[in-house]
C-alpha cells in the first residue's frame, strides 16, 4: 500500500469535518473521489499534504511510515504532491527559480545531486511541453495574473517537475476549457506509471473518461459512504447523490 488512511477525523473549532476516513491506495493505482460541495474533499487532501490548523486523529501511512507528524515540506520531498483546488499566487517569485529550489530540495532529500542550470532548463522544457504550458508563463511570477485555467495547468506542470509518488489532484478539471481539459488529462496520463499513485478529486464524470480510475469513492458529509469501479462515476452523473443519502438513512 502506498497510502493508507485509517479512521482519520478532523475538526475545526469544534466542527467535525472528517468523520473517520478509511482509504487505501496501492502503488500505481488511480483513485477518484466524488462528493457534494462541502463534503470534505479538499480538507482531506490538505491534511494529507500536511496543512495545520485542524484537530486531527487517526493515522496516515505513506510507504508504510506514519507521517502525521511530518511538516508539509518533508511530505513533499518524500513524494506527496497536492495540486490545489485554488492555486496560490506568489507575487514576484519567478516560476523557474521557485521550481528550481523545489526540485533541488527534493533531490537533496533523495540523496541526488542538485541539477545545474542547463539540466534544469532542459527538464523544464520537457515538462512544460507535456501540458503545453507556454514559455511566456514560465517566465512570469508563480500564478501571478494567470487565468484560472492557466493556474490549473501550472499545477500539473509542477507535479511533472517534482515527479511525486503520490499525486492528489483537487478539482484540477474545474476551470479548464474543453481543449485544456484534454491536454491536461493527457499530460496526467503520461505521468501514470506503476510506481505512481493518484487521487483525483472531481465533480464530473467527464475527467474520468480521460483519466480512467481503478476505484471511485463517494465522500459525503466527512465519510466515504460508497466505493466502486469506474461505473460508479457514471451512476453518480446520472442519479446525483440523493439516492446514496437515502440508502444511508434506510440502513441506519
Amino acid at each position, binding site marked *: 500500500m502506498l497510502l493508507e488512511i485509517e479512521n482519520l477525523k478532523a475538526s475545526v473549532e469544534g466542527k467535525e469535518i472528517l468523520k473517520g476516513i478509511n482509504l487505501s491506495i496501492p502503488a500505481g493505482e488511480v483513485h477518484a473521489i466524488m462528493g457534494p460541495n462541502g463534503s470534505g474533499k479538499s480538507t482531506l487532501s490538505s491534511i494529507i*499534504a*500536511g*496543512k495545520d490548523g485542524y484537530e486531527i486523529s487517526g493515522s496516515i501511512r505513506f510507504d508504510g511510515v506514519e507521517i502525521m507528524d511530518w*511538516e*508539509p*515540506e518533508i*511530505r*513533499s*520531498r518524500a513524494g506527496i*504532491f*497536492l495540486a*490545489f483546488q485554488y*492555486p*496560490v*499566487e*506568489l*507575487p*514576484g*517569485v*519567478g516560476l523557474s*527559480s*521557485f*521550481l528550481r*529550489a*523545489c*526540485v533541488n*530540495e*527534493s533531490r537533496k*532529500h533523495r540523496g541526488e545531486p542538485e541539477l545545474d542550470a542547463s539540466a534544469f532548463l532542459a527538464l523544464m522544457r520537457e515538462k512544460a511541453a507535456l501540458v503545453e504550458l507556454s514559455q511566456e508563463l514560465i517566465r512570469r*511570477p508563480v500564478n501571478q495574473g494567470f487565468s484560472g485555467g492557466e493556474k490549473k495547468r501550472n499545477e500539473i506542470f*509542477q507535479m511533472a517537475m*517534482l515527479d511525486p509518488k503520490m499525486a492528489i489532484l483537487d478539482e484540477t478539471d474545474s476551470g479548464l476549457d474543453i481543449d485544456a481539459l484534454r491536454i491536461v488529462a493527457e499530460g496526467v496520463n503520461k505521468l501514470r506509471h506503476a510506481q505512481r499513485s493518484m487521487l483525483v478529486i472531481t465533480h464530473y464524470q467527464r475527467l474520468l473518461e480521460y483519466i480512467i480510475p481503478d476505484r471511485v469513492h463517494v465522500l459525503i458529509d466527512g465519510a466515504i459512504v460508497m466505493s466502486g469501479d469506474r461505473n460508479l462515476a457514471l451512476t453518480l452523473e446520472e442519479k446525483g447523490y440523493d439516492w446514496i443519502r437515502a440508502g444511508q438513512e434506510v440502513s441506519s
Partner: protein
Amino acid sequence: MTTSPELMPNRPHAVQPVDKLRKLVPPNFRDEDWKYTQFPHFQQYKIQPPSVPGLSKGIPSSNLPIPSINEAWVVVVKNGMIQPHLSHLPEPSSGISVCSLPGTHFGPSVESEFGRGAIALKHGHYFSQWALEQNAVGVLIEVKKNVVAQKHLMIHTINDIPESKSVLPCHHVIKLGPNASLTFSEVMEGIGAGMSLSLHEIHLGVGSSLKHNQLQLWGNTHECIQQVLVNQEKESQYAHFAYCAGGGKVRNQLTVSQEGPLAHTELTGLVLPGAGEHIDNQTLMRHCTPNCSSRQRYRALVGHNGTSVFNGKVFVDPEAQKTDAYQHHASLLMHESAVSNAKPELEIYADDVKCSHGATTGMLDAGEIHYMRTRGLSEIQARMMLQDAFVRDLLDSLPVEILRSWCLNHCVDRLHALNQSTVNQPNNPL
C-alpha cells in the same frame, strides 16, 4: 550651539536667511509631518567641524560598491570636504565640474538661484535653513549645457561623527544646464552616533536628465536628516533611487517641483529598518504645469522593533492639466513588533488628470508560505524567497549595475540578519 569658526571655510556669497529662520521653530509632535520622527534635543547639538582636506588617510570600507576610475569619476567627501588626493574628479574637458561649496567656482549663476538657499526658503524646512545659516560645507556639481556625461559620477560620503548629539551640516548643489545628462550616485556612510544633516538643491534645466541614486548606509546609531529639493524645468527628467539600509533615526524629505511642461519624475525607495532602527521618508511631488508625469514606488521591509514611516504628498496645481501621477507604497512587516506608518496625501486642483495611489501593509501571507512548503521548501526558504521577490522588483530599477548587484547582495545579507533576529524574538512567526 557651539562652533569652531576657524575651521569653517569662508563663504562670502552666503547671505544668511536669518529673517526667515527666526520664524521657524524646530518641529515637534504637534506638527503632522513630524508626528513620528522628532529630534527634541536638536538645539543642544554640537557642530561637528568639517574635515580638513588632505588629512583623511584613506577610505575605511573597502566592501562598498565603488567603481573603478575607468567606469566613473569618484569623489571622496569626508565630513563635508572633498578629499582631492583620494578622488578622481572630472577632467575640465568633460564639461562637468565638481568643487567644494563654497569654492572658487561658486559663480553668479549658482548664487542667484541657490546661494541664498532660495529653494530651501520656499519650502520652509527648519533643519535645512539651520544648515544654511551655519554656512554648511558641501559639493557643487555643474554639468554644462548639452553635455552628456561620458561616465558615472559618484560621491563617496564618509561622515565620521563619533559623538551623539553632534551634527555635521552639509549643503550640496547640483545643476544641470539645458539638455545635459548625468548619472549621479552617492554612497553614504555614517559612522558613529552623531547626525548627518544635509540639504541637496538640484536644478534641472530644460530637457536635462538626472539619474540620482543614494545608498544610505548609516550605522544603526547614526542619525540623519536630509532634504533633497529638486526644480525641474520643461521636458527634464529626474529619477531618484533611495536605498535606505539602516540608521538609528533617519528622516528624508524629497521635494520635487515640476515647473515646466512635459517633465517626468521617478521616485523609488527601498527601506530596510532593522532592530531599533527608524527610517522616515517623506516625498512631496508638486505638479505645477501641464502634461507632466510622476511615478513613486516605495517599499519597506521592517524587522522586529524596526519602524518605517512614509508620507507621500502629491500636489497638482490648477494649471497642471493632463498630469499623470502614480504613487504606491508597500510594507512588509517581519514581526508583530515591526511598525509601518504610511500615508498618501493627494491634493488635486486640476480636473483633467490621472492620479492613482495605493498602499499595502502586512506580514507575509500564511497561505503563500504553506503553498510553497507543499512544494518542498522549508518555511525559512519560503519566507526568504517572498521577501527577496518583494525587494528585487524595486532594485531592478536601480540603473547602475555595480550598485544594483551590490544592493541585491546586501539585501540578501540583511534579510538573513533580519530573519535571524526575528527568529530569536518571542512571538516569532516561525
